[in-house]
């Protein structure tokens, strides 16, 4: 990376994070909440970009990881008193990782469309399991819980006001972005990208492609679970609707709309899609998905690289 590009990139990153950090102080309540949600959905979409954009595997099952992160956090928050933030993170990530390992073990045996369908069906399995085991998950009604305090023992303990929550989410999303970016630049990330470009050759060179794929799915699943934990903190409930495959479909939409293989693209896609949804739902009430679906189809046909596709090389530089 040339020096100038390096400079522009990091200044740009700092400015955007700074703007997002100031936002809750100036925005009205509704839009602050909206912004936090965009960040959370953006993180979920970003996690799925590791598979779609970098490894070339389209996952239609990210709702399972997201939902398990959510229910894991719910279990921790309901099970401990007073509710503990770090326990919620731990439980959420652990359950998402466990589910991701399970899904990865089976689904990575398949390629392309078969992988997409298998992940979709796996997410449905978890949906049915969560929906029917009413005793633990509350079934259709889901679980309600209260927000923990943002505390580090012996240091400080803060109440999660909307602004604090926003900064917490922003910090986690920004750190996740940096971490994922670092991973895609690492030798491991390079192997993933070479699987995307030519799987047979990658195998011929001597990489254990299956193992790399399993790790990629797990990595992606853990970050999706992280998004699930954040969402649980934000909304204080977990519901089976978030495990339903339509959520996975929306995640794929965010990726495609924003531009796959860019990491920031999916966040932009989520913002674009959620803003459009907000705008359309004022005119079309609950039928906003009709115009959104049409726009999505048009983007798939006419703009296959997405909104940020033009900057893909630069962002990965």
């Amino acid at each position, binding site marked *: 990376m040339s020096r100038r590009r390096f400079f522009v990139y990091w200044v740009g990153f700092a400015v955007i994070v700074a703007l997002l950090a100031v936002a809750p102080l100036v925005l009205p309540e509704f839009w602050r909440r909206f912004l936090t949600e965009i960040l959370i959905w953006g993180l979920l979409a970003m996690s799925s970009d590791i598979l779609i954009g970098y490894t070339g595997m389209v996952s*239609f099952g990210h709702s399972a990881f997201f939902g398990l992160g959510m229910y894991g956090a719910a279990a921790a928050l309901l099970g401990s008193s007073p509710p503990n933030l770090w326990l919620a993170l731990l439980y959420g990530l652990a359950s998402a990782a466990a589910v991701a390992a399970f899904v990865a073990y089976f689904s990575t*045996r398949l390629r*392309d469309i078969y992988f997409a369908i*298998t992940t979709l*069906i796996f997410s449905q399995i978890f949906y*049915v399991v969560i*929906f029917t085991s009413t005793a633990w998950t509350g079934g259709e009604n889901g679980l309600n819980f209260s927000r923990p305090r943002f505390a580090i023992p012996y240091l400080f303990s803060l109440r999660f006001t909307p602004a604090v929550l926003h900064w917490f989410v922003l910090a986690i999303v920004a750190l996740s972005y940096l971490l994922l970016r670092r991973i895609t630049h690492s030798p491991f990330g390079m192997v993933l990208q070479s699987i995307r470009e030519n799987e047979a050759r990658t195998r011929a060179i001597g990489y254990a492609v299956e193992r790399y794929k399993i790790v990629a799915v797990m990595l992606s699943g853990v970050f999706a679970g992280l998004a699930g934990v954040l969402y649980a903190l934000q909304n204080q409930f977990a519901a089976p609707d978030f495990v339903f495959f339509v959520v996975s479909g929306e995640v794929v*939409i965010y990726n495609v709309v924003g531009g796959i293989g860019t990491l920031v693209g999916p966040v932009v896609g989520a913002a674009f899609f959620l803003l459009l949804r907000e705008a359309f739902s004022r005119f079309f009430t609950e*039928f906003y998905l009709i115009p959104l679906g049409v726009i999505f*189809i048009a983007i798939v046909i006419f703009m296959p690289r997405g909104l940020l596709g033009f900057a893909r090389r630069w962002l990965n530089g």
Partner: protein
Amino acid sequence: MNIPFDQFLIQTINGIVTGMILAMVASGLTLIFGIMDVVNFAHGELFMLGAYVGVLTLAATGNFWIALIAATLAIAVLGAVIYLTTLRPLIGRDPLTTILATFGVSLVLQNYALWQFGPVARKIEEPITGHFSLFYLEYPYYRLAIAVLAVAIIGGLWLFLKHGTYGIWIRATTQDRVMAQAMGIPVPWVLTAVFAIGAGMAAASGVLFGPLVGVNSQMGTSWVLRAFIVVVVGGMGSISGSIAAAIFISLLEAYASLWVSPAQAVIVSFVVLILTLLFRPTGLFVPTPK
């Protein structure tokens, strides 16, 4: 646990009946996949819209059989329109983009149906109202008629593909698209027609299934998921494999619901899928690939 023999027999018949409907949905899906590499996510919505067209025509004409034919034709035309507008521009791109495009189509169609017909389920009257007694149950003849009709429709499709001139065109296109084009087969139209046939079959199964449950905008979702499972278990692109897998899975689910609730019985088909992927990822009901 002791399951009485009569219950076992009833579940066998139920399983075969739903299996035949599922086979119709899945064979349309697998036909579209096998011939044009398109994973049609909107298949369940075509099933659902078919049922709605059936409801409307039935209300207008009062004749179930006219409704069945009208729904099949209307949705076949809709399928052709969907193919021409959203899928034809994607020819030559990664097959995965077809999943995305048809997912968009399914969002649009599902919400259109919700908007147009509302959330309350509509009912299709059974065209055949008689019952016969099966042990302690009054078993409706209509359910048996569904199975017979489904066999007839799938058999008709098979004969068409095997012996009809256009059927031979379709099979030629599957084997080698470029060669078929060189021999003078209008490949773009063959592909459009295949999509229309698949859509029409989904619509027909929607109308046939309508009388058993209510017709609502969500009904396609669960069917398309089960059809996907069937298509993978049966071997992607193999029609006979899909039919066998549809009956196999429906029977298993029917037997499982003797012990657990029907919502949980679905898990059985998931397990079958996982085992298939583990031990025979090319599909259970197709010859071992060499």
